[in-house]
């Protein structure tokens, strides 16, 4: 453990990875709380997978895969909202279509690209050790934007999320707020693909929030605890992968699952003891 901490400060790639773990945890904590509270989990899964289409096309064209992913993610986020608002297709059907369509476009273009695509696995399952400085800067900017936005407009955002109709009657700019949040969800997803991978990212967005939700029902506290939980889990994942060569993303999610189980069991034991105490006293 001590050796690991020393190496974080002596090896640049490990330091980058640790920083990315913390920044990812914070971004996913803030956006995840919004997603879970607004019940946008399935939709976010759709956006995540649809972005693979952009990665495939970018590979084929020799462009930066993250730019391709970003275009696909933002378009599908705005697209799902627009589709379902028109009412012709339900939101979950639109999500289902974009989910698999994005994946198939990605696979087609990856196979059309001559030669072997070595980084494909790292896009699907993430590799936190491959995070470069440019990616870190973008993650930093994203975290700063999210923290600033939520500290300035916290109430406007959650009031719009809670009851859009009422927020509109209070003349809050509900259209701008919900579109901005959709775009931020898409950007958060794309920037975290490198750390967690497309397949595993949904867990980092939802599990810390679910865990925090068992401890408190206050939105602000859920957000803070999700950030702490997400960041620690990704750090633990990095440590486990450093020690045992298990992919860090999978290890992080395993850590979250263990934490959830432990909290549930201790809450259950605490309740049982309380009840037993009440009976013996009573």
């Amino acid at each position: 453990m001590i050796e690991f901490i020393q190496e974080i400060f002596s090896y640049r790639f490990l330091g980058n990875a640790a920083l990315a773990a913390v920044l990812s945890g914070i971004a996913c904590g803030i956006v995840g709380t919004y997603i879970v509270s607004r019940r946008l989990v399935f939709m976010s899964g759709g956006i995540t997978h649809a972005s693979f289409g952009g990665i495939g096309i970018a590979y084929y064209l020799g462009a930066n895969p993250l730019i391709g992913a970003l275009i696909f993610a933002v378009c599908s986020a705005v697209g799902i909202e627009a589709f379902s608002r028109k009412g012709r297709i339900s939101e979950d059907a639109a999500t289902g279509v974009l989910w698999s369509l994005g994946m198939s476009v990605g696979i087609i273009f990856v196979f059309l690209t001559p030669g072997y695509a070595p980084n494909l696995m790292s896009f699907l399952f993430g590799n936190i050790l491959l995070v470069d400085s440019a990616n870190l800067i973008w993650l930093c900017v994203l975290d700063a934007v999210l923290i600033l936005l939520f500290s300035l407009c916290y109430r406007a955002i959650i009031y719009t999320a809670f009851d859009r109709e009422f927020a509109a009657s209070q003349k809050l700019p509900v259209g701008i707020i919900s579109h901005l949040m959709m775009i931020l969800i898409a950007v958060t997803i794309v920037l975290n693909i490198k750390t967690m991978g497309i397949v595993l990212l949904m867990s980092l967005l939802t599990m810390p929030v679910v865990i925090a939700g068992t401890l408190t029902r206050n939105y602000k506290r859920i957000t803070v605890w999700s950030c702490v939980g997400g960041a620690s889990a990704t750090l633990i994942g990095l440590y486990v992968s450093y020690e045992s060569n298990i992919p860090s993303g999978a290890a992080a999610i395993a850590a979250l699952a263990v934490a959830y189980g432990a909290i549930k069991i201790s809450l259950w034991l605490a309740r049982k003891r309380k009840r037993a105490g009440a009976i013996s006293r009573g």
Partner: protein
Amino acid sequence: MELIRIKDLAIGYAGEPPIVSGINLTIDERDYIGVIGPNGGGKTTFIRTLTGALPPLAGSVEYAKGLRTGYLPQIKSIDKSFPISVTDVVLSGLADRKGVFGRYGKKDKARAIGLLHDIGIGKLADRTIGGLSGGELQRVLLCRALISDPQLLILDEPTTFVDNKFEKELYELLAELNRRMAIVMVSHDLGTISRHVKSIVCINRCFHYHPSNVITPEQLQEYDCPIQLISHGPIPHTVLSQHRGCTCCSHDQKQPEK
């Protein structure tokens, strides 16, 4: 003083034919308007247009300068699993005044809690809305509508999911509030509403304004708005039949059933 003037308004969703058109109505101070009509007739669409959640398809809704409105939406639109406290829900009624970057201070919080006490649910102030009963949640939403001290209170079916006791209290409270604010209330409960409101709007794919609260069938015949009162099992039911003698309904009749 006029609070809202509605001119030749058509309501509905963009890209679709209007649900109701040709609405003309003026809402004055101290008005107490009951909005009745069958499901799917356009009542909620009208309310949503009135609150500004839905843009008009045609015509205009003019608001008095600086008009403060309080809105109580249908309770089924509320997601009870959302992690938000009762006090924070009530405070959201100040969003109009506070704007996007607004800060909510101790004074605002004290006001919210005071209002909750007035309405008899002060002890719920710190709870999250998840554990509330339908009646309790309805009271919270009423506090949210009242915290901005509105000039116009808009209620969309405020008596669903509440017990008789609260219903009675609510109507008493509304009568008292009507001394300082106008009220527009949507209700299914035709029998009860007529005892409290001053005038009635009937929306059933068309729009009729009745400047009195009398809705006995005989009286309404005169306004071309026959209403049938029928009993359906143990639950008293009110059903509105088609308006005869008005152009909008006869036009409706020719259209094939959807």
